[in-house]
C-alpha cells in the first residue's frame, strides 16, 4: 500500500547539507504547518501518556503531579469494570469479525455477477450512502425504526403483538451493533472487493468454462484466490483496529443498553477519566489499549508477510 522504495533511489546523497537546503528550502517550508499539527495534536498527546504513570491531579498539572510507577496499571488489574470493558471489547470485535467481514465480500460477488450496468450502478448508489452518515444519525435511524416507540414496534402493537426491545436488550446488543455496522459500512466495504474483481483476467474464466468448470468452481478456483490479497489486507487492518470497535457507536448507546453490555475500552477510558475524574486510570487504560493495538497490527502484518502476502507496511527490499 505504501510505496517506500520509490523515493529512496533518487535522493541525491552526494550533496552537502547546505546545498540541499538551498535546493529544498521551499519544500521544507511547505512541511512546517503539517509537522506543527503532528507535533501538537499527535506527538504531544503521545508524550502526555506519561500521566498513566502519575497520580495525576489537574490543578497540579503534568509537571507537578506525583509519579507512582505502575500503580495505575495494578489498580486497573484489580478493577472488575476494566475487565468487563475488555471482555465486551473482545466479544464485540469477535462478533463483528465473524458476522460483518464476510458480508461485503458476498455483496461484491453478487453485484459483480450482475450483467446490467444500470442495476449495478443503482445498487451501488444506495449501498454507499450510509457510510457518509454520522453515527449519531445511524443510531437515531435505528432507534426510530426498532426502538420501543419506533415504527416496527408500532406495527407490532397495531397487530396486537408484544413489542420487541431490540435497542435495549443487553443480551442481543452484539447483534444490534453488527446490524448497525452492516447497515452503515457493508456497502462501502464492498467497493474495494469490486475493484479487485475488475482486475481478474477474464480469459481465466473463459478457459475454465471451456474446461467444464461451473459457476461455483470458477468462483472457488479463480474469483476467491484473486481476492486473497485484499482480504488479507483488510483482515490485518481489522485486527489492528480490534480494540477500537467503533467508539461513537457505543458511547451513544451506553445509556440505553447499560454499561454491562456496552462498556468498551474507549468508553471506559472516557467515563473513568473525563467524567469520573480518575485521569490516571483512564490514561492507563487508554495507553494499554494503544500499545496492544499497535502490537496486534504489527503482529498481523508480520504474519501476512510470512504467508507471502504484501500486507500494509511493506518490507523494504
Amino acid at each position, binding site marked *: 500500500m505504501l*510505496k517506500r522504495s520509490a*523515493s*529512496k533511489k*533518487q535522493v541525491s546523497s552526494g550533496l552537502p547539507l547546505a546545498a*540541499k537546503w538551498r*535546493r*529544498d528550502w521551499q*519544500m*521544507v517550508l*511547505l*512541511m512546517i504547518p*503539517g*509537522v506543527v*499539527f*503532528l507535533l501538537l*495534536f499527535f506527538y*504531544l*498527546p503521545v*508524550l*502526555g501518556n506519561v*500521566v498513566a504513570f502519575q497520580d495525576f491531579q489537574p490543578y497540579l498539572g503534568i509537571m507537578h503531579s506525583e509519579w507512582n510507577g505502575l500503580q495505575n496499571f495494578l489498580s486497573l488489574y484489580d478493577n472488575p469494570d476494566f475487565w468487563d470493558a475488555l471482555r465486551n471489547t473482545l466479544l464485540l470485535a469477535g462478533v463483528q469479525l465473524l458476522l460483518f467481514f464476510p458480508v461485503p465480500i458476498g*455483496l461484491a460477488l453478487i453485484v459483480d*455477477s*450482475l*450483467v446490467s450496468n444500470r442495476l449495478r450502478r*443503482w*445498487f451501488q448508489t*444506495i*449501498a*454507499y*450512502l*450510509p457510510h*457518509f452518515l*454520522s*453515527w*449519531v*444519525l445511524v443510531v*437515531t*435511524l*435505528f432507534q*426510530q425504526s426498532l426502538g420501543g*416507540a419506533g415504527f416496527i414496534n*408500532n406495527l407490532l402493537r397495531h397487530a396486537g403483538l408484544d413489542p420487541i426491545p431490540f435497542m435495549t436488550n443487553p443480551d442481543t446488543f452484539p447483534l444490534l451493533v453488527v446490524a448497525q455496522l452492516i447497515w452503515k459500512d457493508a*456497502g462501502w466495504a464492498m467497493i*474495494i472487493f469490486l*475493484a479487485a474483481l475488475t482486475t481478474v483476467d477474464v480469459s481465466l474464466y473463459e478457459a475454465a*468454462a471451456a474446461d467444464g468448470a461451473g459457476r461455483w468452481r470458477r468462483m472457488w478456483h479463480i474469483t476467491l484466490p484473486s481476492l486473497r490479497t485484499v482480504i488479507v489486507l483488510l483482515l490485518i*487492518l481489522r485486527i*489492528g483496529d480490534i480494540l477500537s470497535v467503533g467508539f461513537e457507536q457505543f458511547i451513544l448507546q451506553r445509556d440505553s443498553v447499560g454499561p454491562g453490555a456496552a462498556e468498551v475500552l474507549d468508553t471506559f*477510558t*472516557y467515563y473513568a*477519566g*473525563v467524567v469520573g475524574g480518575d*485521569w490516571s486510570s*483512564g490514561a492507563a487504560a*487508554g495507553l494499554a*489499549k*494503544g500499545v496492544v*493495538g*499497535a502490537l496486534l497490527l504489527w503482529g498481523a502484518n508480520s504474519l501476512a508477510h510470512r504467508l507471502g502476502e504484501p500486507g500494509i507496511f511493506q518490507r523494504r527490499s
Partner: protein
Amino acid sequence: MRPVWKENPSPGYQAIKGVILGGFALVIVVPILVVISTSLASDKDIIDAGGYVLWPSHPTLKAYQTLFSGGLMGRAIMVSVFVTLVGTAIALAVTIALAYATSRPVLFGRPVLLMVLFTLLFAPGIIPMFLVVKQLGLLDSLWSLILPGALGAFNFVVLRTFFMNVPGELLESARIDGASDFTILRQIIMPLSKAVIAVVGLFYAVGFWNAFFNALLYLNDTSKWPVQVILRTYVLQGKSLSADQLGVEPLPQPQSLQMAVVVVALVPIAMVYPFLQRHFTKGVITGAVKG
C-alpha cells in the same frame, strides 16, 4: 452483454440475488424515507398513522418553520457550517502542502513521512488528547473541533500517492524555466489533481460535519453545540424541545419536530453525495485501503 461462456442463471438463483440486493437497498432507503416523510407530515397525518408516516398526505413545512424560529437550531447550524468550512479549508491546505513536500526526494522528506505514517499505527488516547487541548486553551472554543482533525493520515496518503504519480520531467522542466516549488505546486500539481483534491476535501468536510464526540469532550458551553450534538440530545436521548427554545405556539407534533432535526443533519450529506459518489472510487483506490 453476457459473455458466451457464462451459463444463463437459473430463475431461482436470480430470485435469490434479487431478494438479497433488493432487501439490502430497501432496508437502507425505507428508514430514511420515513424520517423525511414524517418531518413533512401534518399533525393529522401523524395522529392518523399513530406515529410514523410513510407518505405525508398533507405535506407541510411547519416543523421546519418552528425549528428555525427559535435560536437553538439556527445557532447549531451556524456552528456546524463554520467548523465544516474553516476546518476543511485548513485541513486541505495543510495536507496538500505536506503531501506535495513529501512526494519528492527532498531534505527531511523521509523522517517527516515516517512521522505521518506512525499515526496510522498508534492512537494517542482520549485523556492525553483532552489534556493537550485544555493546555492549549482550546476548551469551549470551536477551534477544538477543527485543529485536532486538521491532518488525516488516510487523506494524506491518498494525495501523496497521486502527487507521486505526476511525472518528474514535468516538474523538472518547470524548474528549468525558473519556477519555484510554490509555483509548481500552485500551477502544475494542483490543477492536475483537481478531482482528487475535491474528493479529499469532501472527505474532510463530511468528517467535520459528522463529528460528534469532539464536541461532547471539549465543549461545555451548550450554545456552541453543533448539529450532531443537538440531534443526540433532542432526538436520541429524547429531551423535549421546549417552547422557549422554539418561540412559536402551538408546537407541532414532537415526532415531526424530531424528524426535522434528523433531516437537517442529513441534508448536507445528501447534497454532496452525488458528487462524492462520482469521484470517490478513484480517490479511494489510488490511495490505499483503510476502514
